[in-house]
């Protein structure tokens, strides 16, 4: 493996990748500008939020980031709790995704809070308000953020542990690494546990607004649906991340293992679909689907495009074998969940007497897009710095380049490099993130 990957743009000559990097960097810069605008001039100037719509695009993006970051706890559960070590190569990409996802969710949240400097208030015991679903979310997200960074500690340390030029640093890192690995099982269990709690609480938030959320979405079991949909989008996100990273680093992700993982997805998707449709039937809310309106349309998009479609696709072995199709199906699941979050937090939110609907402002779009771009860039930066991508590629048979961000003009070279005999490490994957 002698590909000299530079951090930002690998290899000279792959101009499309330079273009993608430049585009992302540009978006991120615009996002930072929008963020400065918000903190400098306030919410009124930067957003279209009003009396009737206190939550907008940033909150939608927030909960979407958190849902998509669920891959972190799902893979931790699969690999470390259920010990499916075959899929260990998923853990680090998932962890990095979750870590950045939660970090950026917190950034977006800070931008949305009117008094962002009080963001830590839920920690103070005299302000605890255990009746609030949001309190539960706040506490769990804060704890989980710490958990994610702790899970990253070994990865961070391993980078410096063999640094012979800085023996002190090396020794320090080795020590920290050892301590971290001791606590790792506790950290992992805690992480999985509180993830389940706050993913569901994000839905439970709206149980308190039965008169304001459209009946297509309001249900007492909103928390269960949110938890299930987070679980259901966790693995697809990791799969897509691995596929894209494999492409970007010219180290194609192992399709056999990814296909195996994807085999479970139709099961999870159908459980979610069954519960969602059953809930609509039981509450008699299906009548609202019959009226042609924005909410009913959005529900159809969410369920058909984001759940049923990928369910059928992923049930086909051909789809699971092809990186392009698998990536496409995974993307559909992700989009489905993002649309679901948008539906609950935005489209389905219908306050009485609102003179007009809420539409996000330019700055809201810019900040959101910028944060997504920054997330992708940071992901690549860290993946190049630390040992994140640890798979050994198997032979790639077909690659349909559908909807993929990073395009490479040298697939052949990448495959050749990837299929070269590998150096052997001696120990198998054990309990360590």
């Amino acid at each position: 493996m002698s590909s000299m990957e530079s951090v930002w743009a690998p290899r000279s000559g792959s101009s499309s990748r330079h273009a993608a990097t430049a585009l992302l960097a540009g978006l991120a810069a615009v996002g930072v500008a929008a963020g400065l605008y918000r903190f400098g001039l306030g919410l009124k100037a930067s957003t279209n939020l009003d009396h009737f719509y206190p939550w907008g695009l940033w909150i939608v993006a927030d909960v979407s980031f958190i849902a998509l970051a669920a891959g972190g706890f799902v893979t931790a559960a699969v690999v470390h709790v259920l010990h499916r070590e075959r899929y260990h190569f998923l853990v680090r990409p998932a962890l990095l995704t979750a870590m950045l996802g939660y970090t950026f969710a917190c950034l977006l949240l800070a931008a949305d809070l009117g008094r962002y400097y009080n963001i830590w208030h839920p920690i103070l015991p005299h302000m605890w308000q255990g009746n609030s679903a949001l309190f539960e979310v706040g506490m769990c997200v804060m704890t989980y953020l710490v958990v994610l960074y702790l899970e990253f500690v070994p990865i961070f340390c391993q980078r410096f542990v063999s640094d012979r030029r800085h023996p002190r640093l090396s020794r320090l890192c080795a020590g920290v690494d050892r301590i971290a690995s001791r606590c790792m099982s506790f950290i992992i269990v805690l992480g999985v546990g509180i993830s389940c709690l706050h993913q569901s609480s994000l839905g439970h938030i709206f149980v308190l607004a039965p008169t304001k959320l459209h009946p297509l979405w309001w249900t007492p079991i909103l928390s269960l649906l949110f938890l299930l949909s987070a679980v259901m989008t966790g693995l697809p996100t990791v799969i897509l991340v691995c596929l894209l990273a494999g492409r970007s680093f010219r180290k194609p992700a192992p399709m056999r293992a990814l296909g195996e993982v994807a085999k479970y997805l139709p099961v999870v998707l159908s459980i979610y679909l069954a519960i969602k449709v059953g809930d609509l039937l039981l509450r008699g809310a299906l009548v609202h689907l019959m009226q042609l309106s924005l909410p009913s349309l959005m529900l159809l998009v969410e369920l058909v495009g984001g759940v049923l479609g990928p369910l059928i696709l992923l049930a086909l072995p051909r789809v699971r074998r092809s990186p392009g199709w698998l990536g496409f199906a995974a993307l559909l699941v992700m989009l489905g969940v993002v649309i679901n979050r948008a539906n609950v937090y935005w489209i389905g939110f219908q306050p009485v007497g609102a003179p007009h609907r809420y539409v996000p402002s330019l700055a809201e779009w810019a900040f959101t897009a910028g944060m997504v771009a920054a997330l992708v860039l940071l992901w690549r930066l860290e993946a190049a710095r630390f040992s994140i991508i640890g798979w050994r590629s198997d032979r790639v048979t077909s690659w349909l380049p559908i909807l993929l961000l990073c395009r490479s003009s040298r697939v052949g070279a990448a495959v050749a490099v990837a299929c070269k005999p590998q150096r052997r490490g001696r120990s198998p994957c054990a309990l360590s993130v």
Partner: protein
Amino acid sequence: MELDRRAFLKSVVIAGALEPAAGARASVGEARPAAADAMGVLVDVTKCNGCRRCEAACRAANGFDALSEESLKDRSVLAQLRQPGAADYTVVNEITAALPAAEGRSVYVKRNCLHCVDPACVSACLVGALRKQPQGAVTYDAAKCMGCRYCMVVCPFQMPAYEYENVLTPQVRKCGFCTGQAQATNDDAPACVRACPKECLTYARRSELLHRAHTRITEQPESYVDHVYGEHEVGGTSWLYLSGVPFDLLGFPTLGTAAPPRLSEAVQHGVFSHFMPPVAWCAILGLTMWLTRSDRGESAPPESPGPVVHDDGFVNRLPERGKSHEFDGECVGASERQ
């Protein structure tokens, strides 16, 4: 091996012990104030003539821009349907168009926070900035607020307003039932009630107000619809309304009798009851992890420096100086097992 197992069990126990921190006090339901003892206001919509003296008094009491006599005389403002805002806790709206033609005249409706008996906003606020006081008021403490606006999302009446234009210290603004002004004026009725010249507003115990309201309905069935708005809506409100026309025509939302916090808190406290479910969940996870563990791959990390092969099969080597980090980690174990 033994050590690992012990470390593992320990971790499960600690996970169980720490978990409650995530939702602490969630199982302690806050006592709902006794509705009968609390104070309230009865608004008899039929008596209001839209003079807006209550608006003026409210502004004066809360230190907002005063309403001059001239602006009070200008009745054009009544025509637009207004919502209480960040600089006016109460507004009077004139309802004409929505009424049946037979009605022949306008109805004036004073709107403000209804100080729900079991308020959704209080249940929502994650830092307890909003509180239900024993005497009925729902009050706000800006020092605690983080500006998440969840309270605005859940209020069934869209009453809390937000100072979006305030860059650094925006507040949630809503009627506070003139709490804290009782001593100053020797009369604990809210400023608006004292200002009303038409006796449209009555301040008394909620139970007594309900009694009076129903008496009025029985005595003059021709003047009132048989409905005291706020008696049962969302579990009851401290502000009660009497009207001659159905309330939905006046823009009052048609709401059920259940207080939203009852359902949501029941679910939440079910999930967190005495922290048993989360702890049990973590314990199950931990137990699964321990029972299904494989004893392979628990080799001690190598002590010697040099290319380090880690537990998980990542091979780390020294990146050369001046070059960006090279890709040299690979998880052999992952593919080897297939």
